[in-house]
């Protein structure tokens, strides 16, 4: 058992009320682990209480990355949210806390 943080890095972006979070393998050998374990269902469950809409996953094998697009994730939208982090910029750090099974150490 390890944390996603050990094998991947991440960045959050915002548009309206939608947040996108990239998950990028440090080492391309770990991309299959991301594909298998970092599913949109798990990401949605991880962000319970934050994401109101759906979570869609896009795959980018050339750069060993996944991109999660989460609708209804920014408290009604960056420009009107009551949240102190209206952009949701800190969400990527929360996702890196996800548990990953049977991984080797990060490179």
């Amino acid at each position: 058992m390890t944390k996603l943080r050990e094998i991947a890095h991440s960045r959050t972006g915002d548009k309206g009320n939608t947040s996108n979070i990239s998950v990028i393998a440090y080492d391309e050998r770990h991309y299959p682990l991301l594909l298998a374990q970092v599913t949109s269902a798990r990401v949605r469950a991880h962000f319970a209480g934050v994401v109101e809409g759906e979570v869609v996953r896009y795959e980018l094998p050339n750069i060993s990355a996944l991109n999660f697009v989460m609708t209804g994730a920014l408290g009604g939208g960056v420009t009107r949210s009551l949240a102190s982090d209206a952009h949701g910029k800190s969400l990527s750090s929360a996702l890196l806390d996800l548990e990953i099974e049977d991984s080797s150490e990060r490179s």
Partner: protein
Amino acid sequence: MRTIRIGSGAGYSGDRIEPAVELAEKGDIQYLVFECLGERTVALAQQARMKDPDGGFDPLLEERIRAVLPVCAANGIKIVTNMGAANPLGAARKTAEVAKLLGLSQLKIAAVIGDDVLDACKDGDFGIMEFDGTIKQFGNRLLSANAYLGAEPMAQALGAGADIVITGRASDPALFLAPMIHAFGWAMDDWNLLGQGTVAGHLLECAGQITGGYFADPGYKDIPDLARLGFPIGEVGEDGSLVITKVEGSGGAVTARTCKEQLLYEVHDPTQYIQPDVVADFSQVRVEEIAQDRVRVSGGRGTARTNTLKVSVGYVDSFIGEGQISYAGPGALARGRLALEIVRERLQLTGVAASEWRFELIGVDSLHGAQVSAHANEPYEVRLRVAGRTESLREAIRIGNEVETLYTNGPAAGGGAFKSARDVVAVASVLLPRELAKPQIQFVGA
């Protein structure tokens, strides 16, 4: 093969100023782009212009231009920026004034106007993209409507000899695409070139975010010298080939990792990154470190542009009232929670009307909510934060006041109370038939 070097001098309106000067002095660049216009900035700028018809452009315009213009003029570097905000013409006049004061009256300054499509939006009743409804529902709360213009008018301004091109709302990557189209004569229907050029623009538009800013995570992703972060340079060939780099000796780093993170920043479906000039496809992009702080990015493609332009619509949405107060030492968490309960009850007792609330403890659950934060350890200090959305400023003020009364009425040792109340200018989007936006170029004499 012909190559140009484009520097990115700002990633948002308040960005650091001296990295752009460094780019102009030492970057061997031919173009310097400043992206300074956030989603809602143009709506706020429109409000400013209502108060002052000569205002409504970026408040830092004068300072930025003054800092870079002498060295840009000396090195023949052309400037492209969206600092025009709600008043590109006013920004161009201000820039001409600065140029004259600096003894640079020979510079040709162009404003791109026509992104303001408020009238067209009022005439047609367009559907809102983010939620159910149409523009009409905003009534007199509607403040502004600005179309994301493409690169063409900016490229034409450069073609007409402009040294400085100032636009209002334009797509951010288009600010970078314009110099490429101008320098290489790319056809406006060469979708793959425009797609790869969009990759370049997208990577560069947030300035420091690709040179190590918004990236460092000690022990995992270390970046040297962030206080002296160098801003990026895109080395673009006429065939669309691209290398991202930065000024030698500046802080930060350009690596495959920084480039990958920025490639997906604010992207949804990577096969369809919709721009005014092209629908770019990032899905086949490859990144490759070819030397220290030099990363080759290839594989961007594109398909035909759509028949519509995205329009940012600014409107007065609501008011937000907020209050904060801190607790520390043993029992801080319990006192913070007690304080939250007291404020919650007080707001009910006194009948403060709000449509939406947040009750949270900074240091505990304010960023990701109670569920995500549930397993965290007890902190030494917490800061209570209560925020509510109201229909009036008067009602919003009552929220912070209730928090403040915790000083003398709440748990022990609450300190550092803070309160605020503000109106919320929000932004929504609509799609406008492309032909309803009519961009124009206007030159301003120094």
